């Protein structure tokens, strides 16, 4: 199981989708799970409409596949109660607002139920790997440490047993890793480093390589003045075009430098291998873009010596 985490806005959902796509192309059955009820995951596979509690096939290819589903706390709770012979109670719990009282009194119970269900999926599903698109950074920490927190608050009962099993899964590096995503910008890098250390310390979970998203691809020939080059090549440029070309080139160079600085900072602060994803100069990520990203991930992985994360 791979848990994909990161601050809001870094492209976590896109990266989760790209990882799933990469796995599927390698012949694996991948289950992609989203826990906040947000849309977006399905769209990157070209699938209209939101994901649901039942698995939806998002892509199938050469023996591999990506299936996607949501797993929100309310759904997980209802299923848990049904499985434990408390179906009638589940409706009352929700309509009377008692679940809010219980969830407040036992912090993390909603997250535990989601993680418990993910654990059950890991055990029962025929998927080769589960990719979990986690909540945004701060919440990811509380989400993942909910099991530990719960063990303090609840001494007995099935919920405690559930929490113990979840802790077992999260701390087993062979079964579960957290993959952190960032942009090559100062604040996201700071937050990734903080989150990384917090997860290792408080949750005891093992960290996969980090993904740096949105890197401007290197483009040669940008450090020469357009007017000079045009004169040399005897190409005629329209009025103002040389200036425009130079401005655009300067912008790219500047941003690339900034990004390289941040990539280096990240490497120094958190010595984990880095997987690098290119900025695609688009606002939408669809199946074509997803393939480009999956290629980039695979290429980046191949460069890491030793056994790579699944």
């Amino acid at each position: 199981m791979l848990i994909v985490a990161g601050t809001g806005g870094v492209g976590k959902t896109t990266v989760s989708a790209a990882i799933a796509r990469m796995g599927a192309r390698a012949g694996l059955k991948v289950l992609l799970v989203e826990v906040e009820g947000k849309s977006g995951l399905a769209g990157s596979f070209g699938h209209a409409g939101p994901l649901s509690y039942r698995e939806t096939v998002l892509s199938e290819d050469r023996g591999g596949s990506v299936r996607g589903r949501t797993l929100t706390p309310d759904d997980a709770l209802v299923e848990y109660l049904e499985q434990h012979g408390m179906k009638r109670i589940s409706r009352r719990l929700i309509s009377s607002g008692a679940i809010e009282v219980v969830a407040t009194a036992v912090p993390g119970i909603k997250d535990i139920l989601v993680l418990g269900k993910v654990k059950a999926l890991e055990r029962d599903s025929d998927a080769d790997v589960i990719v979990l698109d986690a909540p945004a950074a701060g919440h990811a920490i509380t989400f993942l440490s909910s099991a530990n927190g719960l063990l303090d608050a609840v001494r007995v009962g099935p919920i405690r047993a559930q929490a113990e099993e979840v802790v077992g899964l999260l701390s087993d590096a062979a079964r579960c890793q957290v993959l952190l995503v960032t942009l090559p910008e100062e604040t996201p890098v700071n937050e990734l480093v903080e989150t990384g250390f917090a997860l290792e310390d408080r949750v005891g979970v093992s960290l996969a390589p980090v993904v740096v998203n949105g890197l401007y691809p290197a483009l040669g020939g940008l450090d020469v003045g357009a007017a000079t080059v045009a004169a040399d090549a005897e190409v005629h440029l329209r009025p103002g075009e040389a200036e425009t070309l130079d401005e655009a080139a300067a912008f790219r160079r500047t941003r690339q430098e900034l990004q390289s600085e941040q990539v280096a900072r990240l490497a120094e602060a958190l010595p984990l291998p880095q997987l690098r994803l290119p900025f695609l100069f688009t606002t939408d990520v669809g199946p074509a873009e997803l393939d480009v990203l999956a290629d980039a991930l695979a290429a980046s992985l191949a460069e890491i010596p030793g056994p790579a994360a699944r």
Partner: protein
Amino acid sequence: MSIRELVSGASIVVCCGSGGVGKTTTAAALAVEAARLGRRACVVTIDPAKRLADALGLESLTNMPGRVEGPWSGELWAVMLDTKSTFDALVTQYADTPAQAERILANRLYRNISGALSGTQEYMAMEKLFELHQAAGVGDAPAYDLIVVDTPPTRNALDFIDAPRRLTKFLDNRLFRLLVMPSRTYLRAVSVATQAFLRTVARVVGAEVVDDAVAFFQSFEGMEQGFRERAQRVLELLADDATVFVLVASPRRDTVEEALYFADRLIEAGIGVDGLVVNRMHPRFGAVTGSAAADRSRAETLASTPLGGLFANLADFRQVAEHEEEHLAELAERVAPAPVARVPFLDHDVHDLDGLGEVAAALMAAADS
């Protein structure tokens, strides 16, 4: 009305939008600009990045605004919301006796509310807003001309409006309130089925949890009315004409979809969107008459020279700018006639007052176009 007019005329600006789009930076920049215009502005932040927090003097965590010195004729104050302290202060204010307040503050269920009950952070942000709005300054004048509120990153657009209702619903929880009654009434009022239900809950999460909940509701007895009235006054403040709502977004498809959703919910609720800020815009290079496609074919024709690379680069930026414009137009149309400000990528992270000044300049510049 332009963004500048919004900032100079409003008494409250609420910045809403999904997480990761630059809401906190926008809120702080608007407050800086107001201070420059000579107003006494206070910004309420929720979860600022560490360096920005340092620049605004927020590391002291007092839950009271601190003054930020700078080159402006007005005043800039900043506070980082401490949800728990704000809730504690409310409880202390509305309790009948100090002993009642003590009992609640010590209760385990209460201690978890400020973290666990969804919507509490939003509610306390609005509560803080109310408190600051009521604060008196010199003489009888209000302490602040303008309060800018950052909202927590949330899935639901109207969490900050719904939050008071959700909290009062929680406190009114009928099932548990029955347990607060004297035992004979309780035995009559609570059916066998309900008792069985509670026993099951106790079996699943432990009896202590149910006991904590009962103790909490018992200590809370009598205070819900005070909270409810307060929540009502907060809602009235939000609905006031002098309260302005600014939607913050970035031009990616997913964030635009969330922003459209926010805009629709705000419009439906009769609150509306008074301004739109779109951050992280790529610059538009060259003439509007050009196109990415044209640049790309130039690049191909010229591939054997370095010009090919230069044109390919230009094509890349034109391409992303074209997509961003489409999304911006869609958002602008949805919130029309609200003014729109576009904030470009800056050369560096915004983590100090100079950076905020640059963002503020971009926000105001749009007003003139």
